[in-house]
């Protein structure tokens, strides 16, 4: 099975960069792609979206880091990762050697951190572009969730756009935990974002009725999985309606091709499959096949025709 064996033209793009298919991994849900190799042909994915990288190696938070919730899960990993030096020396060359495109998620606590990461990633082989993670809920304070404030969010995006390789599109990853997502979307695109990734997890909390204390070591965590899908589709819908020219990478609870279709119809030109990979390691390939079938069944000859169709 390849991404190209369907009658429907499934090619799409991230900004100016063409993709063989519209299904990507989701940041934080497929590590750096290596562990999926036994289960999917990584070269048929639109791209591997890496776990967010920071300047320094990070241990992440103490355990417990996970609680299962109805049709979803709460996680509190705390951005464990090798740091940019480790990524450049290990994971990115591994992907490049196999011809697997990487969309690198970057994160930081200061505007300068993001800019430095973008600089370090200029011209790196195989790096299609950058997803700017300004919306991870697992940080020390809500003040660090840049995506909750249009000004803070656009400061980060402007700095990244200025520092990044001009050939690499940058997508700002937005949080649904805001009163109105459209002003944030408008601010970051005005600051130079080539596209938007929606949505990051929602801040949640689970209490163990036996211990009568929060389950997670980090107390709060990010809620993901099909439970959040309607919130994500709503965010994509609202932003596409307000900013129809801005490309959207949609994610949030996609488990099947029909789930992905909802995002496409709402306005996403590509999708990330995240938590579903924990349940089904071959989910990305399956969602691609199912989405192609669903588009064909509805008379679309290309994915592009279906993007935003629900608005028309």
């Amino acid at each position, binding site marked *: 099975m390849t991404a190209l064996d369907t009658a429907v033209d499934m090619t799409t793009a991230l900004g100016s960069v063409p993709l063989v298919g519209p299904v990507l991994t989701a940041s*934080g*849900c*497929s*590590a750096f792609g290596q*562990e*999926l*190799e*036994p*289960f999917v042909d990584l070269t048929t994915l639109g791209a591997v979206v890496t*776990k967010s990288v*920071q300047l*320094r*190696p*990070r*241990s*992440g*938070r*103490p*355990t*417990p*880091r*996970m609680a*299962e919730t*109805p*049709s*979803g*899960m709460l*996680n509190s*990993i*705390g951005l*464990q*990762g090798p*740091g940019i030096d480790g990524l450049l020396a290990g994971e990115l060359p591994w992907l490049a050697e196999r011809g697997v495109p990487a969309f690198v998620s970057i994160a930081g606590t200061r505007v300068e951190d993001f800019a430095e990461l973008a600089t370090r990633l200029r011209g790196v082989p195989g790096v299609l572009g950058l997803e700017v993670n300004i919306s991870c809920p697992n940080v*020390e304070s809500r003040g660090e969730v840049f995506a909750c404030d249009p000004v803070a969010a656009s400061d980060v995006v402007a700095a990244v756009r200025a520092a990044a390789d001009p050939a690499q599109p940058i997508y700002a990853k937005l949080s649904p935990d805001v009163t109105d997502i459209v002003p944030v979307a408008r601010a970051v695109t005005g600051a130079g974002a080539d596209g938007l990734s929606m949505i990051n997890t929602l801040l949640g909390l689970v209490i163990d009725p036996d211990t009568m204390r929060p389950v997670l*070591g980090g107390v709060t965590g990010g809620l993901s*999985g*099909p439970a959040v899908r309607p919130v994500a589709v709503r965010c994509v819908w609202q932003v596409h309606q307000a900013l129809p020219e801005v490309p959207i990478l949609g994610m949030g609870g996609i*488990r099947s091709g029909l789930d992905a279709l909802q995002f496409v119809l709402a306005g996403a030109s590509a999708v990330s499959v995240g*938590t*579903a*990979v*924990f*349940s*089904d*390691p*071959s989910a990305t390939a399956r969602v691609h096949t199912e989405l192609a079938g669903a588009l064909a069944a509805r008379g679309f000859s290309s994915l592009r025709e279906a993007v935003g169709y629900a608005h028309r």
Partner: protein
Amino acid sequence: MSPYLTAPAPRADHPPVQREAEVLAARPVGAYVELTLAAPEVAGRAQPGQFVAFAVGGPMTANLLRRSIAIAGTDGAAGTATVVVAPHGPGSTWLAQRRPGDTVDVVGPLGRPFPLPEPGTTALLVGGGYGAAALVGLAALLRSRGSRVLAVTGAADAARLCSVEELGETADVVAVTTDDGSAGRAGRVTVAVAELIGGSGIAYACGPMPMLRAVADAATAAGVPSYVAVEESMACGIGVCMTCVLPVVGADGLTRFSRSCTEGPVFGGDRVRFADVGSLPWDVVGADAMGVVRP
């Protein structure tokens, strides 16, 4: 020279597969259910210490996370793999209710197997509760390599003992303990471990964390290398979710939050920092970036 008696467990020989497997048999064993699966590719690749991860609840399930369970045995010729399911939550209860003819989505074999000692080395195997099941294949493999195998199985009560019969078929000695004295000697496995560790060249353990810690400590104190198979809560089992980490000392002497699924579940017993599980010590690699600094 390394101050550690163990080297980190190497990777398995084969990558995992994802398959729909038919349940061939479901046998109640005390408080547990032993499932035999038609899974020839898993059976053909599995090495003792590895585990499989099940999807639970069927296509309409609201429980999305995989359930990781140690492989209790494989029959390469028959193409079957066996697991012992301990029902305690909705997912494991659903699994324990599978009947012959049902199918389950299984990923495996996963994780790193138990490293093996020089042929002929006397080995002490310690299983707590259903953790004993993970040692059955190891016992047979060690015997085939000329090891004398001393097995200890313990549980809260007789119904929670596991694999005593299977271990008895291969081990030279099987000591049984229960907390309430309903089978074997009354007390913890540590009583039997203390008696047997001195005559052993290597120790293996699978079971609850406090037991693993006690066995590892006893082995290390006796100068005996030990390997423990941990049971951490895992969302995926394949190494992508980062939820199942433990503070483990690597080959370079540095402590990292290591994934129990892909860097474990088998760790050197003297490399797991049991006392620090659930906390973030300052000397874990990357703790400084979390704002945790040397006191």
